[in-house]
């Protein structure tokens, strides 16, 4: 029987999903030129859900026959997803009008995707992990191709869909192998079988590796990053911003939950794989970003590189002593990276005058002179990406490196440090183009987008003065480890 406590455990998800359903119907009566109402309603729905997440945080509940769990980790991630969703709505409102793709379904699909992410952070059963992955992915395939008369958008959507379906296949096959190794799908049952030592260890390991492939695709870790630059470039920019923050966070949520609960016993085999993945992701992301002159592609490679930094701390997932720090540092970094990333993408939205036009480095020329506060904001974001002190990005990297060193992966930390230094070149090049090159940019700045830029820049600067508050929140978001 479904008990009240089951409903309570996924109430925020139900609110987002139910609100999206209602919005789908209500949107029919909202005329084409008033789609701002849909955007506002979507934001209100997300805000209500956010309120419920905050109200129900602090509890630990297993709901629906251990299908889902409500704990500090899921609450933290859900706040991140919901705030990302609201920022994405604010960024999209003006953009989809300008690009003439103003359909209310945009916001509905985004809410479905957010519901999937929220479920992903709560999933406590491999079946739920797979379904949440699909629920968050399918609307994103559509959102990527939302500007469908544009060839680049359609191409991005098709690539994302084909490779995404392939990655889902890996997750499903991994799930099937783990089921055949243990006879269980829910985390409690699998952990019990593994602890008892009655699992088929070969099948279990292959299943774990296949899951790593699937999640590696979602977080865009090398060698599963091939889709990222094309999809990030072709998708509507607010969707790209949403993907680079929320989808990455959802991928890491799944990775952390599944690996920390199910696979600590496999760490001996999986740690070398993760080590190589982390090193390659940092190196490839940063090196290839050096050669980009399209800002969207550059930020896409930078997003790959940042996933590498997080993986660097995650390599130690089997080490019980530092695992708490790993989770806290990862969550902190996701917040720091999210703030910086949304700010940078908002700036791309400002300078993108037509779909996919005006986003080369040369188009930045003169912005620092004619729009000084935009220039200063971009300087802040680029410094934060590069990890310069007095920004959130610095503290994020500091905590990640500290965790890696604590766990004894000094070689990896050195790779991270060197690639970080290399990354400063392409981040600062953006600033150089803005301030040093002459140009006469004509920008249309929407108040909502400038609000996002302003708040993100202030948060990146001011929160860096009190980073331990966020870190403490992240530390309290402990996983339910059984």
């Amino acid at each position, binding site marked *: 029987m*479904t008990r009240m406590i089951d409903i309570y455990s996924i109430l925020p998800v139900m609110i987002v999903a139910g609100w999206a*359903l209602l919005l789908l119907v209500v949107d029919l009566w909202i005329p084409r030129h008033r789609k701002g109402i849909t955007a506002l309603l979507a934001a209100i729905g997300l805000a209500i859900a956010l309120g419920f997440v905050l109200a129900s945080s602090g509890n630990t509940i297993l709901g629906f026959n251990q299908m889902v769990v409500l704990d500090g980790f899921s609450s933290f991630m859900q706040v991140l997803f919901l705030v990302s969703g609201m920022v994405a709505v604010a960024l999209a409102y003006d953009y989809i009008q300008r690009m003439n793709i103003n359909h209310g379904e945009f916001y509905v699909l985004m809410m*479905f995707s957010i519901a999937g992410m929220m*479920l992903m952070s709560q999933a406590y059963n491999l079946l739920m992990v797979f*379904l949440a992955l699909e*629920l968050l992915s399918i609307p994103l395939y559509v959102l990527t191709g939302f500007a*469908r*008369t544009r060839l680049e958008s359609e191409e991005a*959507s098709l690539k994302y869909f084909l490779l995404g379906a392939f990655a889902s296949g890996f997750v499903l096959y991994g799930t099937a192998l783990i089921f055949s190794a243990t006879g269980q799908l829910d985390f409690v049952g699998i952990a019990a079988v593994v602890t008892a030592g009655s699992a088929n260890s070969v099948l279990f390991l292959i299943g774990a590796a296949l899951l790593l492939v699937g999640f590696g695709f979602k977080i865009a870790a090398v060698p599963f990053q091939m889709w990222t630059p094309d999809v990030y470039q072709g998708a509507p920019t607010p969707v790209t911003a949403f993907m680079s923050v929320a989808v990455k966070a959802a991928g890491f949520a799944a990775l952390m939950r599944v690996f920390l609960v199910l696979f600590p016993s496999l760490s001996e085999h999986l740690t070398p794989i993760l080590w190589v993945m982390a090193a390659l992701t940092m190196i490839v992301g940063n090196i290839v970003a050096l050669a980009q002159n399209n800002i969207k592609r550059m930020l896409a490679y930078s997003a790959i590189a940042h996933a590498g930094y997080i993986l660097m701390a995650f390599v130690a997932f089997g080490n019980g002593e530092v695992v708490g720090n790993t989770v806290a540092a990862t969550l902190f970094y996701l917040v720091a990276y999210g703030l910086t990333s949304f700010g940078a993408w908002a700036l791309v939205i400002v300078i993108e005058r037509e779909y996919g036009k005006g986003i080369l480095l040369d188009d930045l020329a003169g912005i620092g002179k004619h729009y000084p506060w935009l220039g200063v904001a971009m300087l802040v974001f680029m410094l934060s990406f590069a990890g310069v002190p007095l920004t959130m990005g610095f503290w994020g990297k500091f905590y990640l490196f500290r965790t890696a060193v604590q766990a004894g992966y000094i070689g990896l930390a050195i790779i991270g440090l060197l690639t970080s230094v290399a990354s400063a070149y392409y981040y600062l090049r953006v600033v150089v183009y803005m301030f040093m090159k002459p140009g006469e940019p004509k920008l249309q700045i929407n108040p909502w987008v400038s609000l996002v830029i302003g708040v993100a820049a202030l948060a990146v600067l001011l929160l860096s003065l009190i980073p331990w508050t966020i870190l403490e929140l992240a530390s309290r978001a402990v996983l339910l480890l059984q």
Partner: protein
Amino acid sequence: MPVIGTIFYAFLAIVAVGSALGMLINRNAIYSALFLVLNFATVAVLYLALGAPFIALSQITVYAGAIMVLFLFVITLLGAEKLPGYEPIKGHRIVAIGLAFVFIAELVLFFFFRNQVTGPIPLIGPEFASPRNIGVLMFTEYLLPFEVVAFILLSATVGAIMLTKPERKSTTKLSQQQD
């Protein structure tokens, strides 16, 4: 598992994997689709052998039936694939007659042995995969996944409509012209 069960399973597994490979390798979309039908049917037989006739028949009707008919329809409607006019397998009529005799022999054998209850693979229980049990499981233990699947299908539907519905630019322009 008895030896006969292992042989039975190995045969089905080889056919299933072979047909999946055939689907992937074949350049002709119609042949690929037909290989997929064979694959679905083989998996359905596996379900049947495991004592889950309801799931097996759902697999046949939904996948091998409805979905594959839709696939073939789309392929032939698009007209991208042209089948060769000649018969690609030499002497396939003789093979077909041979297979027909095998089928008749099977029917006769079935008639004589129809009351035997042994299967090649040991069953979990007679009621294990009955429609009733599946329904009960789906709405109790697996209620949440069931609802999530509903949302996945809905978002896919909304997405498919969004990506294919034609632009309605003319309506606003017409009203502006009338003004």
